[in-house]
């Protein structure tokens, strides 16, 4: 006999299958998106956060994790990584849910005034409010610019490694000079379950952005004839009669072009932001940025707010601190949609027992 689910399990499964109902969806987990969680949290609005990267931090992590930032109020200096870590700690009490590695693909207004939101991974939400904290766009891998290469993307040409096992026992050419290129090179050369048949690393110069220890290890492996390193750039591809990618042409620093046969090509040129689908959501735009008012940072669609680098208004400056201010006012603006019948008052984290409760801290006793 088939086991019958209890009504509670059936109910949980049904809810799991259905969209996530929430008061707020935040698009972007950069510093401003993270602080938006905090400002909404103080108003007891719980948020779900979506980001195309696999981790929080946005530009701070992707573009300048180790570079110092000097203009965060009351923080004389911190790095992009430190700022992100501190924000994550600050928003911990509010238990936001993160949905990484996916982009928002659909935003549509429902008859009940809420929004249907869907991501590229199929995660669905029904949200009362949306906060676009998309920065300068979603980070995409920079691609190799060679004629015809796009035909082999996903079969023989890869810009990220999702399943290392598929490269085991293959003849690999890896292009790039950063940590991703070096780490994967070492991974596929060294003994282990994913060891490739051969690995050739190609980088345009004999200097690397990657950690010096990885570079030293790579050079050791070259000296031991375990792999090869070539200075040069991939300038063309060669295909077999049946259309498979057979080899790449690498033009060296010496001006000589060599044909390098391969099974798979891995390219690690880093990520760069692209302002993509947000432009198609029907919001009023100005120079590809979202027009907002400066009272609530609300867009041309009531209930959708835009904060941080992605918005524009008279006098806008793309500063993290401006984004923080925008997040605070946008949260109050959103409270009118989430709690239409409630008067939301400004309270201070120093003195409000109610905020102490939501922050999970003790109310201090004053003498």
């Amino acid at each position: 006999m088939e086991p019958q689910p209890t009504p509670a399990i059936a109910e949980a499964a049904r809810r799991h299958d259905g969209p996530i109902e929430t008061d707020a969806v935040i698009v972007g987990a950069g510093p401003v998106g993270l602080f938006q969680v905090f400002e909404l949290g103080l108003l007891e609005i719980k948020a779900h956060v979506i980001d195309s990267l696999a981790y929080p931090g946005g530009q701070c992590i992707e573009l300048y994790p180790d570079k110092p930032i000097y203009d965060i109020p009351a923080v004389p200096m911190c790095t992009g990584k430190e700022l992100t870590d501190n924000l994550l700690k600050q928003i911990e009490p509010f238990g936001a849910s993160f949905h990484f590695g996916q982009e928002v693909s659909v935003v549509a207004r429902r008859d009940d005034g809420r929004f249907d939101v869907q991501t590229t991974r199929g995660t669905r939400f029904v949200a009362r409010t949306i906060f676009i904290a998309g920065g300068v766009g979603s980070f995409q891998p920079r691609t190799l610019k060679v004629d015809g290469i796009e035909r082999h993307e996903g079969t023989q040409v890869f810009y990220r490694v999702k399943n290392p096992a598929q490269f085991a026992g293959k003849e690999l050419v890896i292009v790039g000079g950063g940590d991703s290129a070096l780490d994967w090179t070492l991974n596929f050369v060294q003994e282990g379950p994913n060891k490739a048949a051969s690995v050739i690393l190609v980088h345009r110069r004999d200097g690397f952005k990657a950690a010096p220890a990885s570079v030293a290890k790579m050079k050791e492996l070259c000296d031991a004839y375990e792999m090869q390193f070539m200075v040069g750039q991939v300038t063309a591809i060669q295909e077999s009669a049946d259309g498979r990618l057979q080899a790449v042409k690498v033009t060296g620093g010496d001006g000589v072009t060599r044909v390098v046969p391969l099974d798979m090509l891995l390219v690690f040129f880093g990520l760069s932001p692209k302002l993509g689908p947000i432009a198609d959501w029907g919001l009023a735009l100005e120079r590809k940025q979202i027009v907002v008012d400066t009272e609530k940072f609300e867009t041309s669609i009531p209930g959708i707010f835009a904060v941080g680098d992605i918005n524009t208004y008279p006098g806008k400056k793309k500063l993290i601190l401006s984004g923080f201010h925008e997040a605070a006012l946008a949260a109050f603006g959103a409270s009118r949609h989430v709690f239409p019948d409630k008067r939301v008052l400004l309270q201070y984290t120093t003195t409000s027992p109610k905020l102490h409760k939501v922050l999970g801290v003790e109310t201090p006793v004053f003498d």
Partner: protein
Amino acid sequence: MTHVVLESCIRCKYTDCVDVCPVDCFREGPNFLVIDPDECIDCAVCIPECPVNAILPEEDVPADQLAFIKLNAELARKWPSITKRKGALADADDWKDRKGKLGELIR
């Protein structure tokens, strides 16, 4: 506001900047690149990409290169868009540290 490509780019044209622009606002001439001021969103992502530090925000353009603000706007209207990086000009390395290259500009 906008960002501006300055003199250092002339006769070099490394094109590293083009790949990272989130809004594809670079325009390409024979030996120089410019930024379309109507498209640039001031994200500053291109600044560290340029190997010869040819890009600056409008406010930071040095006094002796203010003419490049107008020049970018003017040439952006007639030059085609460039969205993918390509090789620098052949003798780029010989020209990258020279000053007073405005006379070399091919429109």
